């Protein structure tokens, strides 16, 4: 956090530690995410990126450490409550509701996380507009099991969007995609960001991170080793070591 920033942060993580038995997955992590920021999270495999996401979205309980979201401590809230407060996420390995169509997948989000009471027709409209925006319009009534990899990624993002998030966490949404598909997803994320949604993007594909992020943080072995502008972080000695594995 820079002193010049007067707005309070959207998400403030302070002194977060997470242990599994004897293994410390996160060690004293503190970071602030500003409203509307495009934030990149990188680090080698097993560095604690997904653990951090799980702590923010509520899949793991955290103690010690606090997680403040819009000035409210959410560390003890269940995941679905956090979703309703405005934290949405996609999964590293897509987790669609397999017995449903694409449209129904989104309807779950609209049914349970929509903030205000809206009519069924309005929900349908809102669902279709999200799907169109994601380029999934024609697939609305297709079973989730019949989607291609890139379509699954897009559907995950669409489902997250349907919860009307303030903060969207994209967990390696581009892994395993072709370069043209990577660009497609990246454009989608950029267009979402342009509509005042804060986005944390976890990614291994460096060009994507560089192009997308305003700020990048690098984790290694559960600790923050660098944080700053993309070029600063890329130039950091320790980041290069962590990635080259010296």
């Amino acid at each position, binding site marked *: 956090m820079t002193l010049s920033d007067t707005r309070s942060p959207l998400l403030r993580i302070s002194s977060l530690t997470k242990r*599994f*038995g004897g293994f410390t997955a996160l060690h004293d992590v503190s970071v602030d995410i500003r409203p509307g920021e495009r934030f990149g999270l990188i680090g080698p495999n097993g560095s604690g990126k997904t653990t951090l996401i799980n702590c923010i979205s509520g899949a793991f309980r955290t103690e010690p450490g606090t997680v403040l979201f819009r000035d409210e401590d959410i560390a003890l809230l269940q995941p679905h409550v956090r979703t309703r407060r405005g934290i949405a996420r996609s999964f590293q390995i897509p987790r669609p509701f*397999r*017995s449903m169509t694409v449209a129904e997948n989104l309807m779950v989000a609209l049914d349970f996380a929509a903030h205000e009471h809206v009519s069924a027709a309005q929900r349908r409209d809102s669902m279709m507009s999200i799907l169109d925006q994601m380029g999934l319009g024609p697939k609305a009534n297709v079973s989730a099991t019949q989607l291609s990899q890139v379509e699954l990624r897009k559907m995950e993002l669409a489902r997250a969007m349907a919860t009307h998030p303030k903060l969207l966490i994209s967990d390696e949404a581009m892994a395993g995609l072709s370069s043209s598909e990577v660009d497609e997803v990246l454009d989608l994320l950029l267009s979402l960001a342009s509509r005042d949604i804060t986005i944390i993007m976890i990614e291994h594909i460096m060009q994507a991170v560089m192009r997308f992020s305003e700020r990048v943080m690098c984790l290694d072995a559960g600790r923050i080793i660098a944080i700053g502008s993309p070029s600063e972080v890329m130039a950091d000695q320790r980041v290069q070591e962590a990635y080259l594995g010296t």
Partner: protein
Amino acid sequence: MFSFDLLLDAVVIGVLLGCFYGAVSLGLSVSFGLLDVPHVAHPAFLVLASYAVYFLNEHYAVDPLVAGLLITPVFFLLGLVAYRLYYETFEKRGSDAAVRGIAFFFGVAFIIEVLIILQFGVDQRSVTADYIGRAWRLGDIRIPYRLLVAFAVATALTVLLTLYLSRTFMGRAIRAVAQDQEALRLMGANPIKIKQWAFGIATAVLGIAGALLIIVAPVDPTLDRAYIGRTFCVVVMAGLGSMGGTLVAAIILGVAETIVLTMFGASWAPAISFAMLLGVLAVRPQGLFGRRS
């Protein structure tokens, strides 16, 4: 009516009885604990093994334990076939395998029950051997040899299985498949073959366990229903997939049951052991010696 003698006696008998429970649960600890197969027909296979042992004992005067060893290869093959069938029809298709698997194995259990009735009738059966019906005197305590046999067999099985799973290549592969099937596939091994082999082993163990079942008490064709709760209770309480844990959990169960049976109202015994299971599940869902942290 408290007496220290009785308590000591109850503990000794309870440990031995627990070993017996452990022996009949070890196969399930592999098939359900390591492979996640909801094998509710496990006790039906167990009773089937008992009847096979009975048949050999009755008609060819084979010692029940020897008979149990003799049928293990057959049960191993049976296990290979059973897993193949289960894999082709459930695991391969993916989601919901557990729910349908349960129904499938219930069906199999019923079929086995009826086949036993058609072949052997509904009367209860037992076997004869020198060690059945006599006891070993240890001061004031007398211990039935039957239970000592159960103790020896259970310990031997647990040690052998633990060594097999930790020392041999195949054993380690089985444990790996329980941890992460994908990783194993990436290493070029075929997880299905490994699981099939493991299920074969789990079923083969039932040969000996079936012999124990009929050594400890007479069997009848529908006895399997009484053991569904007990065996799953042991395996879950132990925490999935730990052989030593299975034995320890079984012993805890056996001791608790025997103490209640001897010292308090005997008719509460079943409630006590299952209340313990619920307690363990509520506090430590991964079981006492669970494989997950």
